[in-house]
């Protein structure tokens, strides 16, 4: 190991870490905000609401994120109309395209996770809520969603960790994240262990931090299930 290379490239890795985290936070936040209403639409008995959402999640979960990113970043520029539109200053930015692709991708997966949790609502909860006269928005915001989002927490934590790993793909569209820094360090020094090893340590630390944070959230929000789980 050449520790000089590692310490010398640390400032770049810190910058890369900031890019990775920022991309993760904005994508996951957008994904969460979009997924909640989409999940409600996905489980709706009205087919004109559920079928379009199903199609959206099917397409985005059925194709590689790398290809989605390429379609948005490289592909959209093919059209004259896009290049002349008001959105072009945004759409030619790698940052914006990465955010758009990652947010849409994680929205698709998160919608299915939340929809699955909504479907597993115990029917008694729904009956009780209706008996209290709740319906429509109040039924969802007070009873169904708080309960479903809690149950979705373990799966949702997997999705967030997966998304953190997926930010490495941003390195293919000129964004200088941790993976890009590692590839540059490798190209300059031809030392794979120093370059990719450092990146691996960073990602590993991030994974464990996220997993730990979600464990704390689960302990807080799934406390009512703790005893059941021990018995099982």
């Amino acid at each position: 190991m050449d520790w000089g290379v590692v310490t010398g490239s640390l400032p770049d890795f810190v910058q890369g870490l900031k890019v990775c985290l920022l991309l993760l936070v904005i994508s996951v936040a957008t994904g969460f905000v979009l997924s909640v209403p989409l999940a409600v639409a996905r489980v709706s008995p009205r087919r004109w609401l559920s079928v379009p959402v199903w199609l959206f999640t099917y397409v985005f979960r059925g194709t590689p994120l790398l290809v989605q990113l390429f379609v948005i970043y490289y592909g959209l520029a093919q059209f004259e109309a896009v290049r002349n539109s008001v959105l072009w200053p945004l759409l030619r930015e790698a940052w914006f395209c990465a955010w758009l692709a990652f947010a849409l991708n994680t929205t698709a997966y998160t919608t299915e996770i939340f929809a699955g949790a909504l479907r597993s609502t115990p029917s008694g909860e729904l009956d009780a809520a209706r008996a209290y006269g709740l319906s429509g928005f109040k039924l969802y915001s007070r009873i169904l969603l708080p309960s479903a989002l809690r149950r979705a927490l373990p799966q949702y934590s997997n999705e967030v960790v997966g998304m953190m790993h997926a930010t490495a793909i941003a390195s293919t569209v000129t964004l200088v994240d941790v993976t890009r820094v590692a590839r540059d360090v490798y190209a300059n020094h031809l030392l794979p262990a120093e370059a990719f090893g450092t990146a691996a340590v960073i990602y590993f630390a991030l994974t464990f931090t996220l997993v730990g944070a979600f464990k704390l959230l689960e302990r807080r929000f799934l406390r009512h299930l703790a005893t059941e789980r021990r018995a099982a």
Partner: protein
Amino acid sequence: MFHGYLAAILGGLSVTLSVAAVSLAVACVFGLLGAVAKMSKSRGLRWAAEAYTTLIRGLPELVLMLFIFYGGQILLNAITESQGWDTIDVPPFAAGVLTIGFIFGAYLTETFRGAILAIPRGQTEAAQAYGLNRRQVLTRIVLPQMVRHAIPGFANNWLVMVKATALVSIIGLDDMLHRANMAASATREPFTFFMLIALIYLTITTLSIGALWFVEKRFSLGVKAVHF
């Protein structure tokens, strides 16, 4: 519409599919070894399998792929140099397949372990009572019954893996995405070609889901369905 590049893209599809198929075979080998190691009596084996799955699942696929591809080459160079042999270049296909197989082997380890645990203990006890040795119990009783329980997790991993094969273009494999890239820059029609391969990936996903539905039915033949 595709300026004569369609044949090249479809040629790339065969590369993508063979990467996926061979990776799956490699992943199954690593997954079975990992699952058996996790349930073995030896503490060292259990520890090694635990380290394997934890490490792999904590890192992005792309970083692992680059690490194994470039690191493996340099390790190989060091070995050949110390032995005074000629340098051996790692073919990108082998590197890609080994990396993807190694990564998804870690995920399959958990799938297979769960599936083996789902088999009632009485099955292995009965097999032992019939005088089957440990290897026979594993290959004749445990593994065939494990398949049914492993199918859902296995299907999920296959779907994720097919999409992960798009990453091999980054380490220089001439797959579908790589060819789409070339066609896109030659014709200046990137949308056409990236959209085309997105559709091909979507078709693979759809066909896989259909095929797995049949496999699941086939392996659940002797099992009573539960009707709620």
